[in-house]
């Protein structure tokens, strides 16, 4: 029987947050060992005066950082070469990307002896490396946090690109519904619902409460509901359901776009950093 790779190794008995943040304890352990070894080597090197970028060990840190950097960007390449199945699982590349990215920054720091470089190019390289890693970690936090918000608070699941069309559909359904409804329902619709139905409306509240404060908004519906006969109550309930769905779509719109938008902080910096890295290597070799 062919043994397939088992790559999500949750630990039975581990707290939920640990399993969410650490998909593979082995990778974390491996990273911790390598990082500790690096720091130990650095500490030993400083004793022997090998702490500058120009020293043998300093050069070695720089070369190691460049190699790790290349391994880190392989993730982007893997995502764009999904047709080539023999390249292995994308998940492995992401693990390398995350742990390798942090290791890269550590090696850069070791390369610069934990000081800010003075030259313009090296300073830029240092800053972009730092920015790239910090923005990557920020993205990692978003990727752990936002899916939980979306999964726990919302009942619908929707593709972000379809949301504008789906909202138009919701709006049409709501319009048709209130046409024959009682005046209190129509008034409530005009006042509370119709403005919300205009289109996707990103709001900050969704970062805290994915329902967008739906429970408090539903109270207004409940108040009107008591005044209505049975048939109109059904219409009001349906309207409330449409309203809730719309708010959930807004939540998806806000949060899913955030999951994409953070890449603008990360990817351009990474591209710039690699350009600078090539220049840096060129100048080092040339001079």
């Amino acid at each position, binding site marked *: 029987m*062919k043994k397939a790779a088992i790559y999500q190794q949750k630990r039975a008995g581990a707290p939920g947050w640990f399993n*969410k943040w650490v998909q593979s304890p082995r990778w974390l352990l491996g990273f911790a060992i390598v990082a500790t070894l690096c720091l130990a080597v650095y500490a030993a090197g400083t004793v022997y005066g090998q702490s500058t970028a120009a020293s043998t060990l300093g050069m070695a840190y720089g070369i190691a950082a460049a190699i790790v950097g290349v391994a880190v960007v392989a993730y982007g390449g893997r995502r764009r070469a*999904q047709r080539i199945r023999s390249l292995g699982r*994308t998940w492995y590349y992401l693990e390398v990307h995350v742990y390798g990215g942090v290791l890269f920054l550590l090696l850069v720091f070791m390369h610069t002896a934990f000081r800010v470089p003075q030259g313009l190019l090296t300073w830029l390289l240092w800053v972009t490396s730092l920015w790239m890693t910090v923005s990557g970690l920020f993205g990692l936090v978003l990727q752990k946090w936002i899916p939980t918000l979306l999964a726990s608070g919302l009942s619908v*699941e929707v593709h972000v690109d379809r949301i504008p069309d789906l909202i138009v559909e919701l709006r049409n359904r709501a319009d048709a519904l209130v046409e024959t409804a009682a005046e209190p329902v129509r008034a409530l619709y005009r006042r509370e619902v119709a403005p919300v139905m205009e289109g996707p409306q990103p709001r900050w509240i969704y970062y805290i409460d994915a329902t967008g404060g739906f429970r408090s908004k539903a109270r207004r519906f409940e108040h009107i509901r008591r005044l209505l006969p049975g048939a109109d109550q059904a219409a009001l309930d349906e309207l409330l359901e449409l309203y809730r769905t719309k708010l959930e779509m807004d939540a998806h719109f806000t949060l899913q776009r955030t999951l994409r938008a953070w890449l603008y902080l990360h990817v351009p910096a990474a591209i710039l950093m690699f350009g600078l890295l090539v220049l840096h290597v060129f100048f080092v070799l040339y001079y």
Partner: protein
Amino acid sequence: MTDQTMLVRAALFRDRWSTNGDRTGIRRQSTQMTVEQLKKLEILKDLKDSVLEELIPDISVAQWEPGAMLFEEGSYLDLAFYIVEGDVDLFLQKHEGAAGPIFNTRQLTARDIADARQQVPQSPQSAGAVPASPSSPEQFTYLSTMDFDLARGTTQRLTKGDIFGEIGALNGWPQSVTARAATLTTLVQIRLPALRKLKRAATGFKAHVDRVYRERTLLHHLRTTPPLRGCSEMALEALARKVELRSLEPNEPLTREGETADAVYLVRSGFLKLSQSLGAGDLVVTYVSKGMTIGEVEALIDGVVNWQVSTVAAGYCEVVRIDVADFLELVRAHPAVEARLWESTVARIKEAGFTRKNPERAELIEFALARGLAQGNSILVMDLDVCTRCDDCVRGCASTHEGRPRFVREGERFGNFLVPRSCFHCEDPVCLIGCPTGAIRRTNVGEVIAIDDALCIGCGSCADNCPYDAIVMHDTGTVWPEHALPERLRGEERLVASKCDLCHDSDAGPACVNSCPHACAFRVSSLDEFDALLRGETPAHALLRGETRADGQ
């Protein structure tokens, strides 16, 4: 597209009433028939006009050329055939080396059947050409989908008044033989909806179907039912004579909790939902499917005389009713069988107890039955608590399938898991029924069902049949060329049906799972695996099994 494909397609498409047949031609075929015309058919003559009117859309009469292939072993039919005039030969043929694109369906099953046949004592009738039973309206010859009496190299001839194919159609089983018109043959072709109505409305027809099932298939069915394996042939034959066959409509109750349990039921096809009263309502404790039994708990445990569960059919369901006294007589004579039944009884009680303690399990079972997960052999699920909605799964799928993704990242939610609209690779794939060219078929890799783009004419039959919206029609952006066959396609927009094929041709496994950078996409092949995921247990075994299946290893 090669001309050869066109020729094959043209040959196959001439008639939608025939499924997957290598068509040498229908000479004539009826348009929609009238009640008066239907009444002239022996098989339908006793039915009321109102029933016949309901049957009209699903019945036609066709005259087949001598030598015309009606269907081949391994193919799925939604048709039964009644011979009005002429002869039909039934035989087995080897698939090895057959290069035709149509008839490769379920090759493994065909081979399995051949292997199994070698272990079954051959009937004395099986040598040489076997005449069918006398063909009076009262004595139809029935050929089941699991006819083990027909040896390879022999032919069985069916003649006027015989009916065949209905058990396969009613149960969603593939045909185990190939059928060919031996002479100029006139056949009444009855589609599945009409078959179901006939079984309900025509007691004579039901009796015939049941009788031939009893004669040809029941014994084998009993023999291969896991709890009854190991019973002597003689005992099973005696049992087969006593059992009752029942057909259930969707949501039709079979047992009621608290009523006297007087039978054990064996499921022939479909699903039964088992529930127990809890508080003010009913709690679904489990479900049983083809080959499983209910009633052994009540039969075996002394002092338990009433049904411990209420049972209703989840969809159309066929069951075998075994009287409890006959059942006990059988198992008492076979200690090994009794021991095995005790094991399954304990397992059933444990499962019911577990579900009562964990009502969310009941919710999962209901969800699985309602949404078809219970049918599935490989179901894509996504952990939304981890998924970053990056859509790499869809892109990965598209990039390995000529830019056309085979699923969308939308669908039903259960807990924190999304069940996208992706093919479940059903145990009983209704999408296979009615494909005019045989483009959609089982591959020879596990239970994988795939579509051959070259043969697909974009008719949408499979997409319409799929109850789970897992097949989509893609516009290729081109039109059919001027030499396309069938001719009516020429100049039309070219559509192609598209569905998950589990990337069965790749050692790397399904691209959706492979491409997910966050390891939140899984393939599960059973409810237990899904349950394990939901409970946050390690999905390792689920992944391993899913991928192994996809790899066909």
